[in-house]
Each structure stands twice: as C-alpha cells, then as structure tokens.
C-alpha cells in the first residue's frame, strides 16, 4: 500500500489547522455561510437533513487495518456508531457536528486519510477494480497508476475549479470490468497493443445522473509515459469548453456528446501535441518507486489448502454457499479473494457499525495481510486469504452478522442514502432495498446473478441506470413513486437501462420487481443473465407483465 511521506503528512496537518481556523471563524460569525460553504465542501463536509455529513476519501478503495480502525473510531467517537460505504468506494458519516469536524480531520490524518476533493467541482476519488493486484485476469496492478493520478490530481492548481466534478476509474482486467469504467467522466483500461506494449485505452464522457451516457473511446492506445500529459490535455479541453452557465450541462459527458467524440478527440490531440510534455512525462524510475509500494505481500505456500477447503465445504452447506458466492479466484495458489457482504437482507445497504469495522480490521490483520478493499457495490473485500482459514473466517464473520452469502445476487442491492438522509433526494431508497432484499433472499439462488440498483433522485448515486433492474425514486405530488428501468449493466457489457413505463407507487414496487424477475425466469435461456435475456427478447414481455393487468 502507498504510505504517506513527510511531505504528505505535513500537508495534511497544515490543512487540518487551516480548516480548524475556518470553522472557528464561521462559529464566531466572521465568515458567512456563503463564504464558508465552499471551504467546508473542499474538505468533504456537506449539510444534510439531520446533520452535517462528512465524506472521507478511500483512494482506489484500498484500506489498511489501521485505517479501518481509524474509520471505526470516527464512527464511534463522533457519529452514531456507524458509517456508510458509498458507490465511489468512499465512506460517509451522517451525523457529524461542525464544531467537532477539525478534531475528526485531525484523527483521520493520523491514519493518512482526509475528505479533500470528496465534494466540489474537482477531481474526485480515483476508483478501480477491488480485486486489483490479486486477480489473475489483469495485465498488471492498476493501483500504482491510480496513485500516480491521485498525486497529480489532488489540488491541481489548474483544475481546482472545473466546470463540474470529474471522476476517473482505472481497470486492468481484460475480461471483466468491476470498476464501472464506462460510467466515469474519464475511464482507463490498461491494455496491450498489437506490438505487445502495455498502455491505456482512454474513454471519456461517461456518467449517470440526469443525462446518462457511456464513455466513448478517446484514444485507442496511450503509451504509459504519456499518461499525465494526455490527461492534462483532456482536462484542459474540458476546462476551456465545458459549460459553466448551466449546472445540468456542465459535466464533460455533455461536452463530449455535443461536440461529438471526433471533434473532442481532435481538440485533445491538438492540445496534447502542443503542450510541453517533458514536465509531465513519467520516468520509469518514478513509476517503479510507486509500484514498489504495491508489491504483493509475502504469501505463504498454500498449495495444500484446496484439499482442506474441499473437505470443509462438503461438510457444511451454509459455508459452501458462502464460498460459492463470496469468494473469488486469486492469482496465488491456495488463496482466495473474499467479499464481505454489507447487505444482510432487510438492512440498509453499505452500512457498517464501528464494532464490525474493528472486527474486519482485526480479521484483515490476522488473515489478509492487513488489507481491505471497498467495492463500488458497497461491500468490503479481504484480498489475500488462505483457503485453509476460510472456514474460521466465515464463522467469525457470521457471529457479527457479516456472512450474508449473497454477493451478486438479488439481495446484494446498491442503494444511495435517499430521503432518509440526503438533502437532494426526492424519495427514500433504503426502505425499498430492505423490503426487496428480504422478499427476494429466499429465491435468489434460483434467480441467479441480478443487480438491483436504487437511487433516491435523478443524480443517480445508486447507479440505477446501470442496474439489471434500476429503481429511481420520484416525488409525485407529495407521494413517493418509483420509475423502473431494465437491461442496464455496469460491467464489460455496459448499457444504460430502458424505462419500462409509468412509475409505480412505493407499495407496488415489490410486486413490480417480482413480475420483472418472473418474466425473466420464464424467458431466459440457459446461462443467460437478466440483461442478456432483455436484449434478446426486448421490452415488450416485461412491459406486458408490469402493466397489462392494471
């Protein structure tokens, strides 16, 4: 993992001291709310329905055990004993007091964490594949590149006031996209060209929200040394031409789709050709030094672990189910990538209390080389677990309510905080997720892989556009209604879902989702997931099932 150096630590300490002064001036009346608001947002501090909300950045979703304990400490000492892991691999706290925020940021700085650029019109957290560095599917570990981009983009003087926020995702897996790369303002796939060189395919203009788009290919192959110069060129074009007159048209996706990708490419390439690249060219020695911080841990020889695991799964069906859904192939023999579900059916998706965070931190230290990942599906990952200890891990997770065997299944629902917390929301998300999770859990193995995603407003923090079944909460004359979309996908087959028809009342959502699932089960061919069946048969049978009898 990347560790802060003296410069990083000093910078963060100075930033905390600066914010402490700003808060003191605000509380003394020397700063108005209009003056203070951008200052607090630059540190990730929002004002929501019940309190301030602090969003803490988790760079590329990677945490150490010590950092997770730090997050647990914040939850217990300053919040109501829990935090909410978000769809951008961050964590947010819903019950924060402004007067305590400087102390919180000071405590976070002790574990090399902060809330900088988790809000505002700047670069946001760089996200990646939660299996980065441990999956055999990838060309190389993308996290060193994420770290390089993080260092370049944090407080970049030219890009601190972009037209709108800017999100970057990186993935190096060739078969699977677990980072929703095409839904980002800028996406990078690490790829090999025809000559066998490793570089980047660059996508631009993806995003959800009010106007959903998939990213388009800006550059088919970018050599590694040119990464920062090319990103800088792309951002300069966006910074110059992106609309600042209308917040709803300010994201780069609007610029890309109004200019056209060819014109956008022409502009970026012209800027790239004209700029002095020597200052931004990445020397191999610099890349190697950062890559060294992501060296694999000292794995044990675990060749015999497969046989042990086989024996244990045969003896315990509940454990076997958990292994089936919550563990994934690791690049090292005898090891597994373990997903810890934060989606017990009937509970708020992505929430985790302080005791659970501490338990996971301890388990990671003992069994996963002290490392944890956060997924954009709002779950956690232990990336380096020996198969021989999976049974022990499962039992200890189960004792804390953390062994739901549902990764990728119907109850593994993504949901934003919605109207229960969020000042922007138009309807609740969590209660819908709770009802659906409980209702579908009993038959989710029959249903198979299914991604249900719920947003409480058009801003789409719950990624509803790319759910196999997407649910968008709306306010209709004071009543909660939910618009359904189907056929979306956020993986390597990325697609924006299509609206089924008129929105349904909150009480009717469970039955409507049942009808969509039943239609899928009735029509699917062997091995087909929901979006594949939808693409084959189209909207009509689903629409018929939903609306015919109404």
């Amino acid at each position, binding site marked *: 993992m990347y560790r802060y150096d003296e410069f990083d630590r000093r910078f963060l300490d100075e930033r905390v001291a600066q914010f402490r002064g700003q808060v003191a001036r605000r509380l003394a009346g020397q700063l108005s709310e209009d003056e203070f608001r951008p200052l607090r947002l630059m540190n990730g501090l929002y004002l929501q329905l*019940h309190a301030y909300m602090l969003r803490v950045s988790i760079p590329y979703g990677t945490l150490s055990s010590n950092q997770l304990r730090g997050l647990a400490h914040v939850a217990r000492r300053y919040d109501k*004993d*829990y935090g909410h892991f978000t769809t951008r691999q961050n964590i947010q706290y819903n019950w924060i007091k*402004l007067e305590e925020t400087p102390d919180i940021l000071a405590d976070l700085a002790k574990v090399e964490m902060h809330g900088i650029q988790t809000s505002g019109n700047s670069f946001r957290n760089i996200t990646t594949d939660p299996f980065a560095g441990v999956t055999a599917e990838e060309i190389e570990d993308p996290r060193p590149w994420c770290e390089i981009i993080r260092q370049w983009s944090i407080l970049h003087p030219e890009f601190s006031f972009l037209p709108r926020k800017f999100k970057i995702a990186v993935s190096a897996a060739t078969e699977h996209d677990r980072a929703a790369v095409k839904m980002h303002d800028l996406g990078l796939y690490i790829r090999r060209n025809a000559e066998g060189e490793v570089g980047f395919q660059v996508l631009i203009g993806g995003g959800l929200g009010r106007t959903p788009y998939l990213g388009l290919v800006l550059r088919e192959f970018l050599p590694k040394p040119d990464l920062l110069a090319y990103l800088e060129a792309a951002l300069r074009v966006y910074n110059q031409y992106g609309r600042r007159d209308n917040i709803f048209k300010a994201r780069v996706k609007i610029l890309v789709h109004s200019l056209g990708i060819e014109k956008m490419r022409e502009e970026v390439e012209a800027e790239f050709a004209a700029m002095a690249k020597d200052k931004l060219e990445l020397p191999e020695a610099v890349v190697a030094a950062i890559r060294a911080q992501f060296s694999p841990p000292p794995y044990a020889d675990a060749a015999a672990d497969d046989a042990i695991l086989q024996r244990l799964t045969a003896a315990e069906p509940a454990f076997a189910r958990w292994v089936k859904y919550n563990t994934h192939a690791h690049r090292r023999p005898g090891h597994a990538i373990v997903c810890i579900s934060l989606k017990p059916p009937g509970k708020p998706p992505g929430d985790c209390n302080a005791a659970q965070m501490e338990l996971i931190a301890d388990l990671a230290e003992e069994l996963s080389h002290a490392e944890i990942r956060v997924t954009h599906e709002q779950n956690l990952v232990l990336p380096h677990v020996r198969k021989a200890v999976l049974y022990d891990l499962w039992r200890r997770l189960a004792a804390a*309510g953390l062994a739901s065997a549902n990764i990728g299944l119907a109850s593994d629902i993504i949901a934003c905080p919605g*109207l229960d917390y969020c000042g922007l929301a138009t309807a609740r998300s969590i209660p819908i997720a709770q009802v659906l999770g409980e209702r579908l859990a009993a038959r989710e193995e029959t249903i198979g892989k299914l991604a249900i995603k719920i947003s409480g407003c058009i801003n789409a923090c719950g990624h509803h556009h790319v759910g196999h079944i997407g649910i968008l909460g709306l306010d209709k004359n004071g009543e909660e209604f939910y618009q359904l979309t189907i056929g979306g996908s956020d993986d390597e087959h990325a697609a924006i879902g299509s609206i089924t028809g008129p929105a349904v009342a909150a009480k009717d959502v469970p039955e409507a989702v049942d009808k969509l699932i039943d239609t899928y089960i009735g029509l699917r061919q062997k091995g087909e997931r929901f979006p594949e069946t939808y693409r084959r048969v189209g909207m009509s049978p689903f629409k018929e099932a939903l609306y015919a009898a109404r």
Partner: protein
Amino acid sequence: MAESVQKLVTGNRLRDGVPVYFAGGGKWSPVVNGALLVDPAAAEDLLVEAQKGEKPLPAVGVELIEAVREGSRVVPVTLREKIRAFGPTVSFGVVLHG
C-alpha cells in the same frame, strides 16, 4: 384531527446541523413541537424575524415550510420535512447486522 396548513421557519443548527425550528423571540427549538406556527399571510414576516439578531445566526439554510397541528402535535406536511423532524425511517448504528 388536522387543522389547516400553516407555516413555520426551520433551518439546521450551525454548530451541529441538527434541524431546528424558530420559536419566536429569537429562540430556536430542536423539536418541531416548539415551532411558532403562523398563517401563510404572516409567513414572510416570520422569516424576516427569524433572521434578525447577532451574526452568526444559530441556524443555516433558514426557510419556510408547511405544517399542520394534529392535536397537540405539530406535523410538517411533506415527507422530507417529516423525516427531518422525526428522524430516518430506517434503523441504523449499533443495531446494524446484529
């Protein structure tokens, strides 16, 4: 039985973000029942009164909302304001996943 719709002034307390309700006389209450309700015609005057006094104001994001009296209770009209007044409709914290 609910009476006719009235107005009150609400905001979030500056120091901790807790929803607060203008009670008149420069005072703010952390419970909606402590709010001063007025007829819609007097609402703008109430909003002005709530924003008088020394800076900083104890509340930020100050605005008028609709509410009704239901017996001895003051109940905001919209779901958003009900949730602000009475809390999330879902469980959270130590009860999670246990």
